[in-house]
């Protein structure tokens, strides 16, 4: 049984092609990347920058005539990954507890075919840049740098905490709050603060903040972890 050709290869209208391409071209946001790295306790400066600079393209988009391929290579200097997350994460196995994976389908040895797939768009990373970056791409790079800096500020607190310096972590979190009062990672920072308060012996305050967090964000990805601090 041979697989049929992809619908995009035999689209019978421009509208159909555009819709199909919209499905293919969707990609993650810088914010999602930063929040994911923060939630996982992974140092993320370099990854955030790399993600922002990886501008997707598609020959089909060109075929559709409403965009052009654009690659941005070598823009900006990525920041070396902070190391504090490793020890912190090692000491916080509960940090990744969410309700989903308990029943998520895991068949680690049953999917050799899928596992051998090439990346979804391998050509995207191997083709030389055909054009200069557009203004919007530059703005995106600036935003990514800001996200990387914010993640770095949070990592400074996490590094202190992982080394046993809970008071120092709280001070760094105060620095973070002053620098990023409307930051993208404020929820992650609050969870880190709750953890630091608990480790600093201020368990009652940690519990109060945990309760407040759960009231405001009962369905947060981080809620499961926060519940562990409620008395």
């Amino acid at each position, binding site marked *: 049984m041979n697989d049929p050709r992809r619908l995009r290869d035999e689209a019978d209208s421009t509208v159909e092609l555009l819709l199909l391409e919209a499905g293919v071209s969707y990609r993650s946001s810088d914010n999602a990347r930063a929040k994911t790295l923060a939630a*996982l306790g992974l140092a993320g400066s370099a990854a955030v920058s790399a993600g922002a600079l990886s501008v997707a393209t598609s020959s089909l988009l060109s075929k559709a005539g409403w965009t052009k*391929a654009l690659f941005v290579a070598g823009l900006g200097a990525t920041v070396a990954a902070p190391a504090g997350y*490793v020890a912190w994460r090692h000491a916080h196995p509960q940090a990744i507890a969410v309700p989903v994976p308990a029943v998520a389908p895991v068949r680690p040895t049953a999917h050799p075919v899928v596992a051998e797939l090439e990346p979804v768009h391998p050509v995207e990373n191997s083709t030389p840049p055909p054009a200069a970056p557009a203004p919007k791409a530059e703005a995106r790079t600036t935003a990514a740098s800001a996200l990387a800096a914010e993640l770095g500020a949070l990592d400074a607190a996490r590094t202190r905490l992982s080394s046993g310096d809970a008071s120092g972590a709280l001070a760094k979190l105060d620095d973070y709050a002053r620098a990023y009062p409307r930051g993208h990672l404020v929820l992650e920072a609050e969870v880190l603060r709750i953890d630091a308060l608990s480790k600093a012996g201020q368990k009652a305050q940690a519990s109060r903040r945990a309760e407040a967090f759960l009231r405001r964000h009962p369905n947060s990805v981080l809620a499961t972890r926060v519940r562990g601090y409620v008395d």
Partner: protein
Amino acid sequence: MSGVAVAQVVPSEGRSPLESEIKSTVRATDREARLRWMVDEYIDFVARVLRNAGTPAAEVDDDVQRTFIAAARRLDDVRPGAERSFLLQTALYVAAHARRTVARRREVAAEEAPEQIDPALTPEQLTDQKRARHLLDRVLSEMDGDLRTVFALYEFEELSMAEIADALAIPRGTVASRLRRARSDFRDRVRALGTTKKGDLSP
């Protein structure tokens, strides 16, 4: 890297506390590196699977987080080389779970996250892309869920039918049947867009 390091540093049983600590640290570092690689390599893939599986734009970021947190939790169970397959299955599960959880809608309804848009586009093209995404959402939302999943994996992720059968744990004949019906349904709905009043197509 770490495997070699472990073999050299901790050659046998009866380790000292320091040796055990070193080994644990090496394992943790190895794990972190693998997890980080998965994020770098597959975060766009995960976001796309979630979005095309029906996750609203405002919830994609959170569900990307959920998917990778799940991956982190089960990382030791994921065979090396099967990361993408695991992430795919988990993302599909997360998307299905999100659709069922009405309560989550309330939290995010007031804050609609912007769609992710190719930054190279002109304003005019941006409008077209946003409109295309909007129309695609409409078409996909009207499709049967099982058909939609097979359609998205085949047409957007370009998995083979055998790979889809494996990922969804269904017979390949079922995949072929669903794909055939899904494509027909998709085309009918797209053609119907052409007969819709122009104003109805605006995002």
